């Protein structure tokens, strides 16, 4: 089997596995930041998967900086999450780009009520052209919760395909990894979403 076929097979397996495994899903950093576009002035997005649904907004500050906010509702565990991210394009070639992300998540958990807050950072490689990109990234965060021993350290691998046709953008994004908690067993996490966006290009 060629290396390319092996890589594609692996990537497809991870994405499908994520979809199947989504009952244990949680996403810690923004889906919009994971599919950020620096060539648009604004993006409005809806996303959803077996684990969560949500909506968000991205606005671009310059050719190398963008901001994104999004709200998500976790379907199975019934809690809300608000995420804000700042994305920087660190380097760009004709077929590849490197970006960094930093932001924070806010959790609102009903029954018994709990709230969580925490920063996260990410580094991602984007391969391709605006109409079709592959995304590969690493993300790490710290979540602090009001109740109980409150520290959680989410670690994620991001895999995805994104693209755009005119003002319409799309993305199939998956995130797999684990939550580490000091003194406790790690918890495997996975989630996949389909993202659809409407992009405003130019002033």
């Amino acid at each position, binding site marked *: 089997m060629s290396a390319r076929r092996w890589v594609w097979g692996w990537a497809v397996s991870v994405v499908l596995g994520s979809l199947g*495994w989504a*009952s*244990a899903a*949680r996403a810690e950093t923004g889906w919009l930041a994971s599919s950020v576009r620096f060539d648009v002035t604004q993006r409005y997005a809806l996303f959803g998967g077996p684990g969560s649904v949500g909506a968000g907004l991205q606005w671009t500050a310059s050719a190398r900086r963008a901001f994104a906010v999004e709200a998500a509702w*976790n379907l*199975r*565990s*019934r*809690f809300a999450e608000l995420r804000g991210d700042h994305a920087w394009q660190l380097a760009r070639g004709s077929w590849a780009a490197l970006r960094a992300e930093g932001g924070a998540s806010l*959790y609102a*958990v*009903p*029954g*018994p*009520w*709990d709230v*969580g807050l925490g920063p996260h950072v990410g580094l991602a490689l984007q391969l391709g052209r605006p109409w079709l990109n592959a995304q590969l990234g690493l993300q790490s965060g710290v*979540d602090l*919760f009001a*109740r*109980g021993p*409150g520290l*959680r350290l989410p670690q994620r691998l991001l895999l995805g395909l994104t693209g755009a046709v005119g003002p319409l953008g799309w993305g199939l994004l998956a995130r797999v990894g684990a*939550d580490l*908690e000091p003194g*406790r*067993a790690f*918890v*495997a996490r996975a989630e996949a979403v389909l993202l659809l966006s409407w992009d405003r290009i130019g002033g």
Partner: protein
Amino acid sequence: MGLERGGCLVLLWLGAACAPAAPVRGELLSPGVAQATFETRARHTDLVRVQVLFPADDSGRPAVAGTAGPGVVFIQGGAVPVARYRWQAEVLARAGFTVAMPEHALNLAFFEIENGLAALELLRSGPKGSLLDGRVDPDSIALAGHSLGGVVAAKVALAGDAAALVLEASYPDGADVQRLSRWERPSLSLAGRLDCSAKLEQTSEGAALLRSPTAFVVLDGVTHYQFTDSQREDVERGCLPELPLEEAHARVGQALVTFLSASLRGEGVDAEGLDALPGAEVTVR
């Protein structure tokens, strides 16, 4: 002002709609035993479903009793649905125990050990007004688990300071051996002599790691999956039991009730009661 009140009402509605389920009655499974589904939180954000079987009256409400009774948290075996252990929970509920069986993603408890702790906490402090409110004595709760669930049950018993431990066709994780050797609560290791998955040598070695007071009970003619509701997997792989399923269930149930009744009353492992089990080799330390 109107806006604030509206906001509060929306928040109240969201809180009520999204809060975990806390039933006041269950569905009657058989005379004297009902089942209800609770939801509780683990790992801050995860909602964990817990099947609870309990002694009930004809309307599915908890049977009236003077004081809070004993409880058991049961952990499912690897890739075996919780429903396949309902027969065990029914036997225990009929004997007066309240049994909580937490569910796990992909039926793999090993990756969500906190679900067992969440179920233990649910029994210890049942939601106010629910059928668990004040029903279980927080100091009389045992952990039990089958196969891989036994490995997890031992971890939860250690982390949650349970009152007793039952390993069914199972043995502890090597990582827990040191802590288990210092754990002074009563334990029971229940094994099938014809088990082809958790072989007798393994369960025997595992039982030897448990500190006194402990009992190792080997049930003659019993296979691995006879601890569940069907022996299909055993038969398919040519691991044939010598005891009919109903008889195996009767002996497993009798061993569980004998041990748990004594251990959760602080009366050790009831060596005499276990010795009276038919077709069983019993070693008590």
